[in-house]
């Protein structure tokens, strides 16, 4: 098991160099650095087009101290599949040794994962390639200027789901991507947040050791898109967990395990009141909409807990 010593971690070499142009307060690089710290330098990174890729690779400079490839937006799953297949072919031929297997990690946003990248990801999962796919989830297409994605919560303002007298932000439900991915039957899938860094880093270790496809959906605050103060990115993770907007769990070989429970479940308004993208919902007259969203969150939270409870039964059966 990985020893997570904060002092050691803080003094270790960074595989993502500073000096990139991600926004102040963007949590994506925090997540990436935690993840790469676990993975180490024997890692190949794939990025789908997004804030991370464009901010870290302004020709002629790069922030990546690992081999890194970005090609297109929709194909991160296929890209990592090609690299992993190349690796397997070289191992088969005896050109590369497999004793310390190279890690293959994808970083993609919710756009490149839930929507345009969905097919490619699903195919890679189904074929069983060995890789860790990390979705850096800021709940909208941020790189192109804050447009709604299927990861966007109902009621959220984005430029393509604005609010008006008649419509209060996005109308459609949020896709439960982690569940969809887990139901591909892969060895490891999880939801995480960088504010729970030990949990995230342990998840990375488990994922990389799973021997097959693995997935971690990481909530990453976006001050610009969420209309929040840059300093509160990490705190927002805690509020997301406390309000059950972003449950922290993992699915290991089909067993659902809850990793964090709020000491006291907070109302969704505590999530909304910190973010300008929900400010319209906090105005008088929007109580019904808020109540509907609260209901949806509660339903998902209950169904997740039920799924985790019934998984406990599974554990007993297989033991």
């Amino acid at each position, binding site marked *: 098991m990985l020893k997570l010593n904060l002092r050691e971690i803080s003094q270790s070499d960074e595989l993502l160099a500073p000096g990139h142009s991600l926004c102040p307060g963007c949590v994506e690089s925090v997540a990436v650095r935690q993840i790469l710290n676990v993975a180490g330098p024997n890692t190949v990174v794939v990025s789908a087009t997004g804030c991370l890729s464009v901010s870290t690779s302004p020709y002629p400079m790069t922030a*990546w101290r690992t081999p*890194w490839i970005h090609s297109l937006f929709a194909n991160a799953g296929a890209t990592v599949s*090609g690299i992993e297949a*190349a690796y397997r*072919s070289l191992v088969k031929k005896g050109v590369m040794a497999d004793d310390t297997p190279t890690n293959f990690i994808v970083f993609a946003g919710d756009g490149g994962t839930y929507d345009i990248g969905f097919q490619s990801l699903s195919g890679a999962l189904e*074929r069983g390639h060995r890789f860790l796919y990390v979705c850096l989830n800021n709940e909208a297409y941020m790189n192109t200027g804050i447009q709604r994605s299927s990861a966007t919560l109902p009621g959220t303002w984005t430029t393509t789901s604005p609010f008006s007298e008649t419509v209060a932000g996005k109308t459609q439900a949020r896709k439960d991507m982690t569940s969809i991915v887990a139901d591909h039957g892969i060895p490891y899938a999880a939801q995480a947040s960088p504010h729970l860094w030990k949990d995230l880093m342990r998840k990375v270790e488990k994922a990389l050791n799973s021997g097959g496809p693995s997935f971690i959906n990481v909530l990453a605050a976006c001050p610009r898109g969420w209309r929040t103060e840059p300093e509160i990115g990490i705190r927002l993770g805690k509020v997301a967990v406390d309000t059950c907007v972003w449950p922290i769990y993992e699915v290991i070989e089909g067993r659902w395990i809850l990793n964090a429970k709020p000491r006291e479940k907070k109302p969704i308004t505590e999530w909304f009141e910190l973010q300008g993208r929900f400010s319209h919902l906090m105005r008088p007259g929007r109580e019904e909409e808020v109540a509907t969203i609260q209901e949806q969150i509660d339903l998902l939270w209950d169904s997740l807990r039920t799924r985790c409870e019934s998984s406990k039964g599974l554990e007993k059966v297989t033991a």
Partner: protein
Amino acid sequence: MKPISSDLVLENQGGAESMKIDSRSLSGGFAVAEAMRQTNPDVVACYPITPSTIVVEKFSELVANGEVDTEFVAVESEHSALSACLAATAAGVRSQTVSSSQGLAFMWEVLYAVSGLRLPVVLHCANRALSAPINIHGDHSDTMGARDSGWIQLYAENPQEAYDNALVAVRIAEHPDVLLPVLGSQDGYTVTHSVERVDVLPDEEAKKFVGKYIPEFSLLDTQNPVTFGPLISPEHAFELKLQGIEAMRNAEAIIEKVGEEFTSLTGRSLDPVELYRMEDSELAMVVIGSVAGAARVAVDRLRSDGIKAGLVKIRAYRPFPSLRICEVLAGRKGVAVLDRALSPGAPYSPLYGDICSALYSHGVILPLASFVYGIGGRDTYPAQIVDAFHRLEHESKLGTPIPQTSYLGIT
């Protein structure tokens, strides 16, 4: 045709030793699969699409039987197929894919990514019409639509050429002065599904010919990390894209050089521009692909009628052999160009457009007629091509360029 036994031994025209020739009956599709078997690429990622499916299926059999060492990735779409190949080649190994029509079209953005990243991927295409309406039969709309994508384009007339092109493609793509992906095409059904005699190299010779892929950079070299696919600004982009133009220019000489090496091995010529009865021809026709067969029959008929007809077949379409075309066509009384693709709204179809620009920019002005044939898989007969020559003969008497396009075999 009398079957040829595989014991036949022929003198190699260019070489000193005689080499045992292995003659097989192969369809164009299986001929490409055979070349792929001998190349033994490290990674093949493909998605089936008619009529290139036979190549994919044959190759899958080879994988299952252990006749190749290839990691076969049964991707879930063509966009993913080419993306996986792009990544595999960036990871330092040889990768190939197979597609047609909608599949190629679905790869459109990936084509530009592969050439932009200077990755020597090889794509075998069975030319098929692009939807809509949906049509499984052959024409050149798919690959002509990709002519600006920065890929080298080779076209095969028959299964033999399909096999030959598939092997030389690897050497051309990987040459350090080129480093561009290669798209090798053959007419869907007409060539892919027609069985002809194909002389196949012995496995050892083919293996020696394609050699090993030695990439300069690899994603798998974690000791020397590289960044592939950065974001570029207007400050740098123009010059970078011009490197692709330079690489294409270099490719012309490399295509000839690799072709010559192949000729000395097999005795078969792989001229980027192949001539038939052009020495004293007055009326010339330029074609790409399998229609060359019917065109040669037409040329022979015209010759026996006393008309000095000749044929120019373009095997390597990108890079476009402008100088050679000007050399070969200058001084003719009239030239007809046969296109198998439409370019709605453009002055002319693709091949005609390229020939016209090449000639004009070198000061070669002559009667040049555009003929479009075989759209959507319609067959084209020697009699129609003879007709086209007659029309050319008539119109070129004016000595001026010929503005209108004619369509062969339409009702």
